[in-house]
């Protein structure tokens, strides 16, 4: 059972600022969807390997050679003296 408090915790983890109204409505909708998902829990899966990749290839490795990119910072925003500026991060 997903409670509104549970949802608010998840929203905090995901950095989504929900209004009270949103949080209440979404709890109901999401609760229904998660209930629908319960059906897969009844399957016998103890012998099954998880499928983490859709394609069975092994990792190709990249040769260590520099290929610089010029002026990427022009496509970024919120800059100050070429840094990205954000409100103070408390440390």
């Amino acid at each position: 059972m997903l409670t509104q408090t549970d949802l608010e915790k998840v929203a905090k983890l995901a950095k989504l600022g929900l209004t009270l109204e949103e949080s209440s409505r979404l709890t109901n909708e999401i609760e229904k969807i998660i209930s629908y998902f319960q059906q897969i829990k009844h399957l016998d899966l103890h012998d099954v390997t998880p499928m983490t990749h859709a394609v069975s290839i092994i990792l190709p490795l990249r040769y260590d050679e520099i290929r610089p990119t010029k002026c990427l910072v022009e496509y970024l925003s919120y800059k100050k003296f070429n840094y990205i500026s954000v409100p103070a991060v408390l440390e």
Partner: protein
Amino acid sequence: MTSPDLCDLAISVLHNKIKNREIKFSDIITSVIKRIKSEDQKINGYISIFEEDAINQAVELDKMMKNFEQLKPLSGIPIAVKDNICVKDKLTTCGSKILANFISPYDATAVAKLRAAGAIIIGKTNLDEFAMGSSTETSYFGPTSNPIDNRYVPGGSSGGSAAVVKYSGALGALGSDTGGSVRHPAAFCGVAGLKPTYGRVSRYGLVAFASSLDCIGVLGKTVADTAIIFNTIAGHDEMDATTINTPVKNISVDSNAIKNYTIGIPKEVFAEGLDGRIAKVIDDTINNLRSRCRNIKEVSLPGTKYAIATYYLICMAEASSNLARYDGVKYGLRVSSSELKDLYARTRDDGFNTEVKRRILIGTYGLSKGYYDEYYGTAQKVRNLIKQDFDQAFKDCNVIITPTTPVLPFKLGEQISDPLAMYLGDIFTTPANLAGITAISIPAPVFIDNFPVGIQITGPALGEEQILNTAKAIEEINE
């Protein structure tokens, strides 16, 4: 009798006219732009249109190309690109407020390959926000409507791409398919929509939704057009570690090849929830193929009934991860705040629509401490079972035929308030994404209430040639 407009013709026909010097490249672009101007206002298929660029490129081609030996597979052909695929120095919005002003510094590999094949990128098409949806109603830039009947949805999430191909506002389009997002709108709009094998087309430059499911796909008016476009974008890419190394064979579609094919029909298909009229159309089409193919066989895909739950658990978890970078810090929307945590929360609340938020929340929940094994972990195992179903079935057949969607197109606004109902529409398309295999949707020879019925042909991994051949055979039924 007026001759058809150039934009309504097939790619090969246009190239023949070019070679015969009947038309110029500029004529093609002029025709397409004229069509866009008359239709797109009410359809809203495009988010950005590159009219000036397209005209300039066509003029250049006309100047430069003297003998048509230099004619490349897509020379001068206007192709539209779904707005979650990056095009250099153009907006890539993903249909979202959070990226409404984002300009990409690079071309997706698939786009670069289109250009290398001579294509002209004519514009970026509308989509459900971040490709999350099946109706193209959730975009920040408004819904797209179905060219067949404007009151109806075009399907989704690549609804914009399907619609512009349908009304000939482009000669083909790239879309993305994570759970059916190329095939579903292809079915609703009555065009061909191909989802290649996972790893056959590079994902570099496709804005990630669910990394282990996403594919760039092709929409075309005909099977032949679709194949031409697919041939140019397929192949290994060193920028994408999940691409397959097998060399790409240039597919030339041949419907006669099906005489050696066994067609598989999964017995679970004709179950509850399937519109009876659709079932009949599929049945009739299969009967029509019976004489042309080697055999029709019943196969079983028992995992199908878990496909939606499995699909959504995986894609929502991966989406919650892939969308973490949209934080208002370095590009896109930022809602000003005096504290960093508010900056994140407000930007993401304001920038994402409800469906996206819903999926991020469920996905985060499914990955969180204590729930991973129960949700994401379990879904990954069921995914394996579904793949094994297909491996087994393809031992007995070459291709599998099902409907693409269980229902016909619905009206705009009709389904949007019931997310679960929307999800259930993906029952036939999600299995191919889960298994990583290839599938195409093409219109059946029969319409219902003026609407086309999508037939889906699914093939094993790297089986694009088989499914294109089968699709062509179906396309020929009415010819």
